[in-house]
């Protein structure tokens, strides 16, 4: 070996590739980890569903499946918006309140026609989403605090509208809105179809549009995204707006399904949605996630809930224990996979 320069190039020479156990794993284990992270929840869902249908005769019946699907739909729509927010590295705690507010506004508005019943909750919840987004993006406040404030504020607004919950607004039978919530198409409830359509649209937006790219970029590395010219503030405002809109829509559909606006709904729904998103493989730290995963996460939570109901002898309170334990297991697994893949 000869030395040609004073500042020998050896100084920057690379790792010896033969060195064992270098941090970045082999391509295969990397792909495997990625696969588990993306589809692990789906595998668990399939297994749990199989076991349940073998164990309980009443599980895999048309009625039960259709019920589960419809009751999943509302949470799924909320979780869709939450997925966008979490991928940007944020969090939206206001969705539970907005869900209830959307329902009450839809029921109240249904007296003035279906159009008002749908547009009113979207307008109000969307506006609250815009405010969330503006405060997070422009004022650089922590999403946790901003949306916590919105959660409390929306709950208060709800109580004001309903005279502290004393007034309950009903949705007339046979109206278009009631049909939207209660009717079925091809054996599945209309909310299920609306949810599926929203998820397909959501997947396309997230993976195949510039806005979607910006969502990932902002969550992946905000500073770099800004330097690369991504509109960071606009992206954040949009995801919180989207989350608000979807929460309002889910609430409106839910009210249509129940034929009334119920004020006590949506308590803790934000946490359920966050659980579903995380179980679905989206990183709570942002930058990585899939809408399909969130759908699977919602289904998994609902199936577990259903199974516990099927057992009957088990107090339904325990379903929260199981859901909680399940979430813990998923987060542990995700963290482990993430460390393996050096995401965190």
């Amino acid at each position, binding site marked *: 070996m000869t030395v040609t320069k004073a*500042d*020998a190039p050896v100084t920057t020479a690379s790792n010896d590739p033969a060195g064992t156990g270098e941090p970045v794993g082999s391509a295969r284990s990397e792909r495997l980890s990625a696969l588990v992270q993306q589809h692990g929840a789906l595998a668990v869902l399939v297994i749990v569903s199989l076991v349940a249908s073998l164990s309980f005769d009443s599980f895999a019946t048309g009625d039960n499946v259709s019920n589960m699907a419809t009751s999943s739909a509302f949470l799924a729509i909320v979780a869709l918006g939450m997925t966008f927010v979490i991928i940007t590295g944020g969090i939206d705690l206001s969705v539970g309140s907005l869900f209830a507010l959307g329902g009450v506004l839809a029921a109240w508005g249904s007296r003035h026609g279906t159009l008002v019943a749908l547009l009113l909750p979207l307008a109000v919840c969307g506006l609250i989403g815009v405010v969330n987004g503006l405060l997070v993006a422009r004022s650089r406040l922590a999403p946790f605090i901003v949306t916590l404030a919105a959660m409390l504020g929306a709950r208060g607004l709800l109580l004001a509208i309903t005279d502290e919950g004393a007034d309950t607004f009903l949705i007339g039978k046979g109206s278009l809105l009631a049909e939207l919530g209660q009717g079925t198409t091809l054996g599945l409830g209309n909310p299920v179809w609306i949810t599926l359509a929203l998820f397909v649209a959501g997947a*396309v937006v997230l993976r195949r*549009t510039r806005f979607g790219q910006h969502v990932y970029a902002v969550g992946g590395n905000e500073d770099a995204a800004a330097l690369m010219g991504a509109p960071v503030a606009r992206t954040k405002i949009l995801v919180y707006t989207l989350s608000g809109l979807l929460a309002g829509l889910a609430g409106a559909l839910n009210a249509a399904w129940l034929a009334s606006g119920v004020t006590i709904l949506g308590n803790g729904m934000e946490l359920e949605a966050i659980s579903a998103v995380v179980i679905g493989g989206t990183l709570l730290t942002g930058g990585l996630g899939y809408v399909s995963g969130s759908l699977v996460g919602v289904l998994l939570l609902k199936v577990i809930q259903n199974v516990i109901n099927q057992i009957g002898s088990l107090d339904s309170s325990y379903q929260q224990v199981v859901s909680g334990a399940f979430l813990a297991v998923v987060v542990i697994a995700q963290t482990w996979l993430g460390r393996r893949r050096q995401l965190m």
Partner: protein
Amino acid sequence: MAPPAEVLAVRGLSKSFPGVRALDDVDLTLHAGEVHALIGENGAGKSTLIKLLTGVYRPDAGEITFQGHAVSFGTPLEAQKAGISTIYQEVNLIPLLSVARNLFLGREPRNRFGVLDLARMNREAEDTLRGYGVQVDVRRPLRTLGVGAQQMVGLARAVATDARVVIMDEPTSSLEPREVETLFSVIRRLRDAGIAVVYVSHRLDELYAVCSTVTVLRDGRRVHHGSLADLDRLALVSTMLGRDLGEVREEGLTKFTGDHQSAGSEPVLDAADLTVPHKLHGVSLSIRPGEVVGLGGLLGSGRTETAKAISGALPVRSGRVTVAGVPLRGGSAPAAIRAGISLLPEDRKSEGIVPGLSVRENIALAVLPRLSRFGLVSEARVDSVVDTFMKRLRIKASSPHQKVGELSGGNQQKVLLARWLAMNPKVLLLDEPTRGIDVGAKAEVQKLVDELAADGLGVLLISSDLEELIEGSDRVVVLKDGAVVGELTGDDVTEERLMRTIAGDTLAEPVKEVTSDG
């Protein structure tokens, strides 16, 4: 051919921050096809100038003319759209996104429905990257690429945006020599295409290899500009430092005096058979008081791991560490600190300084428990410790209450050093103490290492800079694949011997037992 057109002209640019005049009346002219070296010590104003050119900051005074028009960029995006692209020292891409998506972020090819055309995007990404010597599956997440390849993606991205001016801020700091060559060929291609390049680097070799013109900044002012060929290395360094040419020549480029008196033969630190699965295979070394022991080897040879294992930051499977004859329980950083071992980590940003805290708080961080009584901190004692070390290490800050994040790299490093010196250590482990800091600060840190050894500390010095390692160390222990492959002492401590040992040339030195499981 007409003389190359002026692409960018900067006149009288000034920018101040609270308490600092970061840039003072600076001019800069760039012509098409010019590769312009922008140099200066840290804190000279290079970063500020770049940030003004790219719309990160707004100037207080002065004007920027780009392609004949006065411009004022409000954001990096506006500058980028106008045709001024920047690649930064650290890769500024999105690690979790795919290579292709990173390359095209914000200008993705779309079909007529406004949906991304992934097939075309991936194909074009592959074609583009091939020109930069990167051949990978572009659908892979960016972070699965090596740092060099990531840097190339960043470069490809910067150039692909129809840039007229490309600014490169220390682009080679994480590249391998082969990748540096690729980078240079890309720069020459840009030059031939009539693009103006601003090249910022501390590595003089690189400047002379690719740059034609130079601007030297010092203390926010332009102190020299012109053809680079007219300025030899020594003149360049002395202009940059603002020191007399003769003085630089006399003292050499490093500040080390060389030999140290190692008092007594009892080692202050004795590490034996340190083994960490996959990383270290029975590494042993000892340091006597007043001795500077260098740790040589390539990147990934286990240098950092050795330092971390000694300091308890990395759990060892087996091995012993003895400090001044007292055995240390392994794998416990607090125990190591109590025993008198201090580690100055390689990555000062993530493992050392707390940028949001003041100089005073950063220095006092580790020593606080010793300055407290019943859990209450004695402010007076903290002040006196902070004052002592700020003076002793010549830390340049507007006051002890200035945030460390606002200091230059060299001063940040000194703050870290102060933090550990305040602990009154017996052994100091320095992992790349001068990386990423400018020549002047480097010399100061080197001088400090000398002084500390003279005070009787045992110092372990890890450096990728061979010159620094050789001039600074009394002995050099050479690692390869996590095992000691040789030790150079006395007159054998030369660059050539070191390289031979690293390369595994047994003629250099009777090589100690080489483990085969590495």
